């Protein structure tokens, strides 16, 4: 997630709590990209990510007092809200895309002769699906630490677990993803 100025956030949150619409709008614009990105990486679905992000901000509108600046910055707080929305949604409906370890693997020679752009898009889609297929606890470690480039401490704050747990989950997740990406080394194409 982004790291908008915490001090500025505090002022804006105070104004937002007092009903200042412009302050809320400013907060939304500052934090929307990070929340959306997190939701997108977690779901692999732009539409669902947009819905999650919207839900997270609407929840914040209705619960402005839930954010306590003493316990962390607003970015981490909103990340935590989005995470809870995701988990709730996941519980409600299993919509995660999956890619299992037995996915069809074609030799490089049989790879479709598409253009470079299409190939890149397909590879990006493969990464997206691979990340989305990870178990929740591993996926959020990859999303926060590798895609969002957060420190272990920041990720631990959002997830609500010890730093060492985040680190071990990330390593485990990368091992799983490494196996999925073995085609790169072995010249195979995974679809």
């Amino acid at each position, binding site marked *: 997630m982004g790291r908008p100025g915490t001090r500025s956030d505090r002022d804006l949150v105070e104004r937002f709590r007092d*009903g200042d*619409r412009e302050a*809320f*709008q400013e907060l*939304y*614009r500052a934090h*929307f*990209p990070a929340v*959306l*990105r997190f939701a*997108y*990486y977690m779901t692999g679905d*732009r539409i669902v*990510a*947009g819905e999650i*992000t*919207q839900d997270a*901000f*609407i929840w914040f*509108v*209705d619960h402005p007092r839930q954010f306590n600046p003493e316990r962390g910055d607003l970015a981490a707080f909103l990340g935590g809200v989005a995470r809870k929305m995701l988990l709730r949604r996941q519980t409600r409906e299993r919509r995660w895309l999956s890619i299992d370890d037995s996915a069809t693997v074609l030799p490089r020679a049989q790879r479709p002769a598409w253009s470079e752009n299409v190939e*890149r898009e397909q*590879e*990006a889609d493969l*990464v*997206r699906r691979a*990340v989305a297929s990870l178990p929740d606890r591993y996926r959020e470690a*990859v999303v926060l*630490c*590798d*895609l*969002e*480039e957060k420190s*272990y401490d920041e990720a631990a704050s959002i997830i609500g677990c010890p730093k060492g747990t985040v680190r071990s989950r*990330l*390593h485990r997740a*990368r*091992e799983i*993803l*490494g*196996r999925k*990406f*073995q085609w*790169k*080394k072995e010249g195979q194409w995974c679809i």
Partner: protein
Amino acid sequence: MSCREHREALVELARGGELAANDRSQAVRHAEHCNECAQFLDRQLALTASLKEYAAEELPDGAELEGTVLAAFDRARSREQVRKRTWWISASVAAAAAVVLAIGLRPEPQSARIELGNPKIAAAPPVVATPTQAIAKRGVPVVVAQAADDQPFVTIPYTVPLAPEERAIVSRMSIPVTALIAAGFHVQVSDPGAEVEADVLVSQDGRARAIRPVSLAISRSIETSSRGEH
């Protein structure tokens, strides 16, 4: 050190994470001599590159959703204002009700019971009558029974007076004039079966301590009866 232990360092090496210089050099040296770990490192480096590419993907700027979220903000503001307004109205109504109760608005039925904190109690029972002739005839002071609530209660003889902070209940009821007479009141009526409407002050032990005739109709009936005597 085992391959497993080295791989933790290799993951951090591949993703550009925090790694002590000593751990880094040990992991690199191990990968140079271990084919499996070298392949592992290659895969991790490829994974890092793919993830960076994925992270660079363009996403919507949020303008589409901004309208919806701001509309939610506006709705929440409206709800908050309505809530505040409702609170003020409720508070005003409650305050008005408290004022009405405080000034002594009481229900009409005879069975109505009203709590009084500190009722006014007169020291001695008055004479309940109206005609001046009757007063003149008997030569004693007369208090005309009135419906006014500000009339003092009159202590019933031979009862213990209420303590200053003792709570009491006022019950409005019809009392036979004979009871008033028995309590020491001078009531001048020809019909001993007549009744007088009165507030009776009942202490916490359930005993009547004071009384206050309140019915104008009764006072008139007393007056009529008294005139009839003459």
